């Protein structure tokens, strides 16, 4: 397997471009001259003459930059987990929400939204904490339900995941119906999009995403071997059950953090691994890091669209990813020459 640097270079260039776009585009247009002056004054540590109120600086530093950083983390988490799950379950339809993360997070978030929290740092973090806990708890329940003796067969995981998700979704709907003012807030959260601004969400999500994705990057080769089934993989020396548990835990960690701070954003985790596979092959040692990078890019680009297209309205990102993700994937599929890409 030739491991060239080219795919990484291309992906990183796209990511940098997307990040720049995300910082430069928004519902407010910052003239290039002002921007240049801001950067200059910023580096010199002086206030900018073209930005007397400091509102442009606030927009850049307190809104766009942290949002860009958060979306990079979220996009990478969703796509990396999606790729890992597709390998783990040997199923092209697997996405990071397969075993209950999104519905668990949704239930947690909506429960938290129905309580009036005091206006303190912890109170403001109640919804993301509840979402994160809901997601992790949901997956814990799923793994326990799917357990057979010492092993956790993948079929059981999928079945348990579907049932727990259905239950959690029903619970969420019930809570939403019974609420009054929280309904709109819950719907918006469930459609995906960061409701928190500033650097706190970035700091909150960072450790979990880094740990989760960092560990996943080590599991590319075992995932390759596991494509031949649990038995053959074990006969080739891969500790299948342990690898499975680690993948589930780390992917869940990263995805839970992503969903807790950015809501449920679909499609990114499902589509990006396939696009990367079509372009650069299905070797998981490469598929995982490239999916993370490309996922971050896709999310940044779709977020720019979500912000700019109906300004000053901001459409929840999850809607745009679904609208754009599907045709984009079909286009890539058509362009692919290889038939044996899965």
């Amino acid at each position, binding site marked *: 397997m030739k491991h060239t640097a080219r795919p990484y270079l291309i992906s990183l260039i796209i990511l940098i471009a997307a990040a720049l776009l995300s910082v430069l585009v*928004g519902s407010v247009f910052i003239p290039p001259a002002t921007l240049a002056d801001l950067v200059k004054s910023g580096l010199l540590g002086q206030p900018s003459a073209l930005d007397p109120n400091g509102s442009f600086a606030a927009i850049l530093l307190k809104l*766009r930059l942290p949002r860009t950083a958060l979306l990079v983390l979220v996009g990478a988490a969703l796509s990396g987990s999606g790729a890992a799950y597709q390998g783990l379950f040997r199923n092209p339809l697997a996405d990071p929400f397969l075993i209950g993360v999104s519905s668990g997070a949704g239930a947690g978030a909506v429960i938290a939204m129905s309580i009036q929290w005091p206006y303190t740092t912890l109170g403001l973090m109640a919804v993301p904490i509840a979402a994160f806990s809901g997601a992790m708890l949901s997956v814990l329940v799923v793994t326990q339900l799917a357990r057979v003796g010492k092993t956790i067969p993948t079929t059981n995981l999928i079945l348990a995941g579907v049932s727990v998700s259905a239950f959690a979704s029903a619970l969420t709907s019930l809570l939403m119906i019974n609420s*009054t003012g929280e309904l709109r807030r819950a719907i918006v959260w469930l459609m995906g999009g960061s*409701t928190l601004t500033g650097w706190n969400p970035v700091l909150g999500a960072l450790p979990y995403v880094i740990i989760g994705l960092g560990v996943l990057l080590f599991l590319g080769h075992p995932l390759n071997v596991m494509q031949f089934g649990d038995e053959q993989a074990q006969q080739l020396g891969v500790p299948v059950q342990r690898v499975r548990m680690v993948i589930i835990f780390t992917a869940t960690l990263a995805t839970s953090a992503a969903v807790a701070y950015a809501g449920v954003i679909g499609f990114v985790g499902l589509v990006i691994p396939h696009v990367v596979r079509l372009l650069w092959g299905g070797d998981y040692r490469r598929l995982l890091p490239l999916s993370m990078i490309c996922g971050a890019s896709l999310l940044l680009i779709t977020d720019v669209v979500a912000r700019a297209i109906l300004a000053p*309205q901001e459409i*929840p990102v999850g809607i745009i990813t679904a609208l754009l993700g599907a045709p984009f994937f079909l286009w890539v599929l058509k362009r692919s020459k290889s038939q044996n890409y899965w």
Partner: protein
Amino acid sequence: MKKLLRFTLSLVLLAGLLAGCAAPAAPNGGAIQLTDGLDRSVSLEQPAQRIVSLAPSATEILFAVGAGGQVVGRDSFSNYPASTAELPDVGGSMGDYSFEAIAKLNPDLVVLTEINTPEQVKSLEDLGLTVYYLKNPVALDGLYPMLESVGTLTGHDKEAAALVTSLKERVKKVQDTIAGAQTTPMVFYELDGSDAAKPWTSGPGTFVDQLIQMAGGSNVGAAMQDAWAQISLEQLLVADPDVILLGDAAYGMTPEQVAARNGWQTLKAVKEGKIYAFNDDLVSRPGPRLVDGLEELARIIHPELYK
């Protein structure tokens, strides 16, 4: 169990991360100091001159106390008075406001209400803006302190006081008129009738409920459990209201459509043609127009007292 251990560990880690963060700083000093609906201490050096409103009720209150000229931006749903249409729109129809647009307007005060979230308060604070959160009043009386607060914040104390006095007078006038009522008609206030077999109505404790009572009527929805409640057609037939008010008239519901609904023909109100479109904004927004709503309700419920 290993997974459980890891799970609790994550939770502890998360909590620990946040424990390090300080609580949001409270500003101090300033000529105007108030405590808002989130128990936050808000202070201004001088009355606010550049105000952004993120809720229709806040916009109405601002204009009502005479601060309309100081409003520089508003949310998409603010539509009263008509002049608000000319003000810059800062978003909000899908729950997300454009913080960038708000920041660009460089406001010295941003007013939010309960339809906004505490997270949004925090986000605006982080941008260095002064934010005031208006908590919804539970009863009509709770409206007056809100008006006074806004008056103080905008330098229109006198006008706010005058407004409060006039509103109280109008309310008293309605109550005096209604005191002469012989009957207490049953009123059904429809919020959403898309499912004609289970329409949505306002339950106990809501403004609609209170205002209907103050207007000398009895709210069918008072028997429900939740503030936003669905009533089955069967229950409605048993209650057999004297008057049907269409709060969903703004969405196109007409008395003719209601009269044509299957099973509704036996209702007294339908037979007597006592189905009226109603401007829901008058009774759902916690602002001075609640009194308009009260007067309107009294006229519809007790036409005999208003000849």
